């Protein structure tokens, strides 16, 4: 059994098949397929406009795909996402929490929205865990960027999600705070066995957190593999160089059949 009492099966935590999104003549995501094994971390890596955020938004239900199928935690996310939403959560520095509410108020509202028991204790515990106790009664808008990120993280983890989606979670953080946040993700994953889908520009973050990487360009998956696979395939010593090779089309490209194959 998983920490949340759901059956542990071979079913992936997330399965995406031929997912596409077009806006008029613009293709944001172009028929991508992938799956994320339970308990693993998958990183979406690509430049601006590669389709990472749109992909995450479609998984979250904020954007309706033009075509394709999406299954998350055993639920068809395009037909019935109510149950799945209770088991998922996300964090992004680009989606704010209400600034005028205090940290305690914000977390209380979200704990209740996720239908949790022992709301008061749970808010205190997550605040304690994320070193937010002293800020609990401060308006969220009056916190520093690092503190706001921790509040966003507390909101994202308050329901102990089985599937956690992160959109550039450490963007605009100083290296020390970013390292602290990454350590927290590692500890959370180790404790709960949660699955993480991560979109990032930060190559160090991807190398450190991801079990598998999808390289995206112009809405398509152009390569995939573990960080070490990709480093070996491109003959590079770090993911930043791999990223530049893929973004500029200068490196050794994978076979077309591999690139757009069935879910890994």
């Amino acid at each position: 059994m998983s920490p949340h009492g759901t059956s542990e099966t071979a079913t992936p935590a997330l399965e995406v098949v031929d997912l596409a999104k077009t806006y008029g003549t613009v293709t944001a995501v172009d028929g991508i397929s992938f799956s994320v094994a339970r308990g693993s971390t998958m990183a979406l890596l690509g430049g601006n406009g590669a389709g990472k955020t749109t992909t995450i938004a479609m998984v979250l239900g904020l954007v309706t795909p033009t075509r394709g199928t999406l299954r998350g935690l055993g639920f068809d996310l395009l037909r019935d996402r109510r149950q799945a939403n209770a088991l998922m959560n996300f964090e992004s520095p680009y989606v704010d929490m209400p600034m005028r509410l205090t940290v305690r108020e914000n977390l209380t509202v979200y704990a209740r929205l996720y239908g949790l028991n022992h709301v008061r204790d749970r808010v205190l515990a997550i605040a304690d865990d994320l070193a937010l106790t002293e800020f609990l009664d401060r308006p969220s808008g009056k916190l520093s960027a690092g503190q706001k990120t921790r509040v966003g993280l507390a909101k994202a983890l308050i329901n102990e999600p089985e599937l956690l989606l992160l959109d550039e979670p450490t963007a605009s953080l100083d290296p020390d705070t970013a390292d602290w946040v990454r350590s927290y993700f590692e500890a959370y994953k180790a404790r709960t066995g949660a699955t993480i889908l991560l979109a990032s520009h930060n190559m160090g973050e991807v190398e450190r957190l991801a079990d598998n990487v999808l390289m995206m360009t112009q809405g398509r998956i152009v390569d995939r593999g573990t960080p070490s696979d990709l480093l070996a395939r491109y003959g590079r010593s770090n993911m930043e160089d791999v990223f530049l090779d893929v973004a500029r089309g200068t490196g050794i490209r994978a076979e077309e059949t591999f690139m757009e194959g069935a879910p890994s």
Partner: protein
Amino acid sequence: MSKHMQSLPPIERHNPAFSFSRVSAMVLRYWYLLKGSWPRILELGYWPSMNLVMWGFLQTFLAQTTDVFAMAGGVLVGSVLLWELMFRGQLGFTISFFEEMWSRNFGHLMVSPLRPVEFVAALVGMSIIRTIIGMAPALVIAVWFFGFNLFELGIALVAFFANLVVFGWAIALVVTGIILRNGMGAESLAWAVPFIFVPLCGIYYPVSVMPGWLEAIALCLPPTYVFEGMRSILFDQVIDWQRLVFAAVLNAGFFAGGYIIFMAFLRSAKERGMLLSIGE
């Protein structure tokens, strides 16, 4: 992991199809915002009170010079109060919705287990709270300054209130739907759209003075029956319940239509990716 976290009992998830707990969580969210901001509370009562004072003195002047106003004291004040009920009911819904747009929090809500119907229920609940807070000073001023007690309309006031605020919510559903689909550039519709109904619903005059075709439109709108009903009580001391029931049936249709339009715009907003750029 902190000791505090370790001592917590396992998470129990309650995720019914409709959850009053989620509705109350959202009402709590808006209440936190309201109670922490005295300018917001002040503004709630400011406009209805100012409006009432202006129309109240006009009523006093007209009563001294015109027979019809002398005959039915309070007809203008009553009209203003009832109009404000509808307008504030609509604004109470839309402003709470705007708070999500202004704070860019809507994305978090839409990926939570909160369902659209629960979100709408919370906005309705908050509209009632905001309307009561906003109207209270105006109701007191009406009694103290102009000798008009809205509660003297008796049991009919309940029917008037229900018909007006439900129609206000129907308008609000359409307006918020348009904003979801088109972004906050359409924000001003929240203040503009209700005023379409000021001339149409015969707020300050009987609909019989309108041209026939306009009167036919007016009779399709539930508030018309409320304002006609109020004048009927003040001038003739008669309550036409049959017409108020008809207005309620019309209102049920308007509210259902508003909800369907809201859901259609929400779907459209998701198709167009508008929820990603909301607030911009």
